[in-house]
């Protein structure tokens, strides 16, 4: 088990990177705590796999260092780093039995056969593989094979971290839930540091204590699922997390008021000091749509409402900008036009994509979430 530290870490696949665009991974400094489960989440090409491979030692970073528990491991090979890795496609030793597969890493390290037996049996029981221990691994289903790959990491007592590279890609949808639960149980029991790469937000948010959201080679936010939902640090997080994503609107700030194509929206005293061009972000679930004008609301035209069964999504137009409003099932949605309320508690202001922290020293009658 280990704490993972990334110092001045950056990586380029070019030998002489000239500009930022040449970097697959922009410079970053992070500390990942021992025993926590982290998910690296982002669209394809965001650099999450590169980062995982740097941690596992399969890729040597072009700049900066990786340390496990304070020890610099940047120069070490994967086998010298005491990590285990589960790949996208199950890697098993076809000709061996399930037992021999699980025992393999221990035999390679010269453990006594009695110790191996005890350890393998314990892990097999945990993974519910005890019934198939004598079966040949090649003949099992994909989910069992993936459990075997995980088990080869778990049998070792010296493992610093277990890394997962989209491990549920080839698993049948109805078995994914079972494996996600198994992973959480294992994490709760072994308290191992786990790093999990995925492009699937459900998988990332369900698995991880902390989600590392990546975009264009950069870590844009590390936070709990709740923080990502309620307080996106970057407009990309607002867009990427949640379905539908956050509404992001260019606005002009002045004295605690945001002006968006002529409409004025009060954003609360905490943003009173801001002026000039910014972006206003608010999630569709926090907007309220009224049939009649209420103080502080903005008139919008309603383009269409989709009834999604458990909720409704109204697509509205405010000046040139489109917004989505999420309404409950059965709510009456006004037709043609309506009045949109922006609760200041849920308004987030961004400058160049980054969240502007509210200034809590400014007296405010509006409570800021958190």
């Amino acid at each position: 088990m280990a704490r993972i530290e990334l110092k001045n870490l950056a990586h380029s696949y070019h030998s002489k990177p000239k500009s930022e665009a040449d970097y697959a991974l922009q410079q970053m400094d992070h500390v990942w705590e021992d025993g926590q489960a982290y998910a690296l989440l982002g669209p394809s090409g965001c650099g999450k796999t590169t980062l995982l491979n740097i941690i596992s030692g399969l890729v040597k970073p072009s700049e900066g260092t990786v340390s496990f528990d304070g020890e610099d491991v940047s120069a070490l090979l994967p086998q010298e780093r005491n990590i285990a890795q589960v790949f996208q496609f199950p890697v098993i030793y076809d000709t061996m039995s399930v037992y021999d597969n699980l025992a393999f890493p221990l035999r390679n390290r010269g453990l006594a056969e009695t110790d191996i037996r005890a350890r393998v049996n314990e892990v097999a029981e945990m993974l519910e593989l005890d019934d198939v221990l004598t079966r040949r691994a090649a003949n099992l289903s994909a989910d069992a094979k993936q459990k075997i790959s995980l088990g080869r990491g778990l049998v070792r007592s010296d493992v610093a971290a277990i890394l997962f590279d989209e491990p549920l890609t080839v698993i049948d949808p109805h078995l994914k839930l079972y494996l996600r639960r198994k992973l959480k149980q294992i994490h709760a029991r072994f308290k191992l540091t786990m790093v999990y790469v995925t492009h699937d937000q459900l998988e990332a948010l369900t698995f991880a204590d902390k989600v590392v959201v990546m975009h264009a080679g950069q870590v844009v936010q590390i936070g709990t699922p709740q923080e990502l939902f309620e307080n996106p640090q970057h407009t990309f997080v607002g867009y990427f997390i949640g379905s539908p994503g956050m509404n992001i609107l260019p606005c002009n700030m002045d004295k605690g008021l945001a002006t968006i194509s002529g409409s004025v929206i009060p954003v609360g005293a905490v943003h009173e000091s801001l002026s000039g061009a910014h972006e206003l972000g608010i999630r569709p679930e926090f907007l309220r749509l009224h049939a009649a004008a209420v103080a502080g609301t903005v008139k919008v035209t309603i383009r269409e409402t989709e009834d999604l069964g458990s909720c409704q999504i109204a697509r509205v137009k405010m000046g040139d900008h489109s917004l989505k409003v999420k309404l409950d099932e059965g709510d009456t949605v006004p037709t043609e036009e309506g009045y949109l309320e922006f609760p200041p508690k849920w308004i987030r202001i961004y400058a160049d994509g980054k969240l502007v922290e509210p200034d809590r020293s400014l007296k405010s009658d509006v409570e800021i979430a958190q």
Partner: protein
Amino acid sequence: MALVLENVSKSVAGELHIDNISLQLEPGTFNVLLGRTLSGKTSLMRLMAGLDRPSKGRVLMDGKDVTGLPVRKRDVAMVYQQFINYPSMTVYKNIASPLRLAKVDAAEIDRRVREVAEMLHIEDLLERLPVELSGGQQQRTAIARALVKDTQLLLLDEPLVNLDYKLREELRIEMRDIFKRRKSIVVYATTEPLEALALGGNTAVMDEGRLEQFGNTIDVYQHPQSIKIAQAFSDPAMNFVRGEVAEKTVKFGSAAEIPLQGHLFDLTEGDYQFGMRAGHLHLNRKSAADVAFQADVDLAEISGSETFVHVAHNGSSWIVQRQGVHQHAMGEQVEVYVDPSRLYVFNRHGERVVSPGNFQEVLN
């Protein structure tokens, strides 16, 4: 005029892929085929297109029997799961290809290619080759090619399944707008209930080669005729609990009895399966009429803006859909509440007896 399937069946190597389907699709309508993998969606589309000939039954187009008429001689376009474009042609030539084959004159081709490219937001990519495009752009090109010819029948077979979820979200909305203005009969196959709902129009629920129910999408969603249909058309899955009706009350295992009222009032005595949508289950009491069930948390799955709490009640697995992000420890004990007016009722054969807001009894 309409596309009509009359008692169409299709078997391949002794295996029944399509089982006696009759269906009428009107021009200018958007029709979703909803069903899990291998439920017969693709087979049915191939019969509609004329790629396969039905083993039994007839296919009529505009009242004319077209059974056995090869696809080349029909007015049909198709979009597939895979992004299929001509690799050596530019986006422009790809989109223009059906018109060139139809010997449309160059000026008209140009006008229509640009029009449809604009509709799909690929007007700036017309000179690129497919390899230079992202997955989403490739599929937009394929859709544009299918749209450009204004065919009588347009078939889309899970066109968004290979795109990542944000792109899927965007394209779904665009598709809804694009197809609204068409005179074609559009048929769209998907495995995802949410996609069917987002696209609107009509939905045909398919299962094991059979057509289970066809109608307005939201009507089918709200009033599934059987447990099978309710299961196929809910995401997350519908939750079920057994209940016994006697002396004008319902008793659900360990939970308290409730009196028969509202849409449940006419239930006759006997055993029923009560269906509850995940969104109608709550972890806090909403009203005094709510029924409460004891349950243990299995796993809380978080989608980003919603939490799906998997719980176990009396051996059955349920899902409680909650707005926002909530953490639940595995094994946590919870009370699950449901408003009786939200209950679906099915008989022991899995047929719907009543659904919320629907008082019509099933005949038989």
